[in-house]
């Protein structure tokens, strides 16, 4: 197919591409450039914003919180997601559909709807605390939301579809004969899992972890609504400096740091997965 002459001539091609290129230039490239520019320019070139970040205890605390919450949510998503991926991979394809729908449901639900639902479920007088009180006959109010637990649960719920699909894709590419051979040779199911299934699924695990971590560090809504005051993440700090203190250079410098970290993670993901990781994210 590639050896046939290009069907469209250069000018037609350019004309068809131009409107999209214009949209990307004005609404994607320019805003990104503007953010980087704003982080080093106030009445002339300056590194004030970056110097302030280096010495700001708030920024370091938020950076630490961002990494701690993202890391925990990613690990929880991995531990909760792996059994689901395993379960899905063992189902015959014809029976997989309804389970896949359950996995994809949170992907299609608005993050605000899920946050609201988790507040109602996990709140002080929430459904779970009420149910526990009813069962035990005591007044139970376990704090599960507006704190770090809430932020992590909310984020895990958001990350799970990405994690599960990523692991599932590497479980499904495994040759079933490997497991069969091991079984014939007398290996127990657990040994098969530990020696064959798990090691062969590591690329999917790694890709899932990288995708989840990348998505986590940029999260804005979940920490704002489900976390406590102490659980401000980088995206919330950007908003804080943009709207509350109107320090645009500082907000931009944080955005540049966030952009850099997620850029490194995306590059690592590209190494792990080639273009497969991208396809995952776009589904």
């Amino acid at each position, binding site marked *: 197919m590639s050896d046939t002459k290009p069907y469209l001539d250069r000018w037609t091609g350019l004309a068809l591409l131009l409107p999209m290129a214009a949209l990307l230039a004005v609404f994607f490239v320019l805003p990104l450039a503007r953010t980087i520019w704003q982080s080093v320019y106030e009445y002339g070139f300056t590194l004030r914003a970056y110097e302030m970040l280096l010495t700001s205890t708030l920024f370091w605390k938020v950076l630490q919180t961002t990494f701690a919450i993202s890391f925990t949510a990613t690990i929880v998503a991995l531990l*909760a997601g792996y059994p689901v991926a*395993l379960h899905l991979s063992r189902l015959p394809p014809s029976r997989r559909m309804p389970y896949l729908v*359950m996995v994809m449901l949170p992907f299609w*639900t608005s993050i605000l709807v899920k946050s609201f639902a988790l507040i*109602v479920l996990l709140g002080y007088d929430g459904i779970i605390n009420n149910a526990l009180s009813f069962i035990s006959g005591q007044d139970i109010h376990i704090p599960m939301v507006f704190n770090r637990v809430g932020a992590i649960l909310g984020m895990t719920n958001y990350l799970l*579809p990405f994690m599960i699909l990523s692991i599932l894709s590497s479980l499904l590419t495994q040759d079933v004969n490997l497991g069969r051979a091991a079984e014939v040779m007398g290996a127990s199911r657990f040994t098969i899992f530990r020696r064959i299934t798990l090691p062969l699924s590591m690329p999917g695990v790694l890709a899932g972890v990288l995708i989840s971590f990348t998505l986590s560090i940029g999260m804005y809504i979940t920490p704002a609504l489900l976390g406590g005051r102490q659980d401000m993440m980088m995206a919330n700090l950007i908003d804080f400096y943009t709207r509350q203190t109107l320090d645009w250079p500082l*907000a931009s410098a944080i955005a540049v740091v966030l952009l850099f970290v997620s850029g490194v993670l995306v590059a690592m993901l590209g190494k792990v997965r080639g273009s497969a990781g991208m396809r995952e*994210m776009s589904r």
Partner: protein
Amino acid sequence: MSFSRRSNRLVPGIAWVTYLFLLVPSLIVIPISFGGPGEMTFPPRVWTLDLYRQFFADPAWWGSLIQSLQIAVLVTLVTIILGVPAAYALQRTNLPGGKILGGLAMGPLLVPVVVLALGLYLQLGPIGLVDSTWTVVLAHSMLALPFVMVSVGAALRHLDPSYEQVALIMGAGKTRIFFKVVLPQLRAGIAAGALFAFLISLDEVIVAYFITGTDTQTLPVKMYSALRWEVSPVIAAVSTILTVVSLTFAIGLMWLERKDRHD
């Protein structure tokens, strides 16, 4: 053998805990939305439509729903009108820089949305373009573009270029070939891209939160502001409306994907 059977139940057992964790937060808003206006309980003590009445009695709520639907429709049109010809051109030419442009169109997927939101705010604020419906439409179109490019690109790869060659030899003009030969074969891909674009715009909060004002507030922005102050039961009705729309579209997408596989 006994171990084998036990582990057979162990995996689905743990998996079901996760399935429930995935399912419940997305669906529990539906029964709660039919409860009374004073309480949020499950199951509701009384079944009423009070929360929906409350929603439709308040122009700030239903006005923002109309605004969101309007924006989502426009975003769908813009991304399809810009994305389909661009994806086609990328597939049928070897322009220098075409690959870079194709990669750039995927860019919005890879950049944290809050960074884009800040950039748009900084870029458009000083020249007075924030708080305008069209600004939100174009910003959302940028976010939805990668999804349309992927859906349409996938459909294009299945397209046999010899149909176009034959039509060309038979004397059809290129515009005519695009509309009569190419577009009809891309129907499923375009429909999938359109559904994606609509949903992404309808659910998008962060960019809209940064660049809308009181006049252009979308439903998710209104909802986010409401949730930050108090958890009012009327949000259960809003959530149900959003969820029902999202699910309808998601089912549509899955149906398209299935149909595509069988064709």
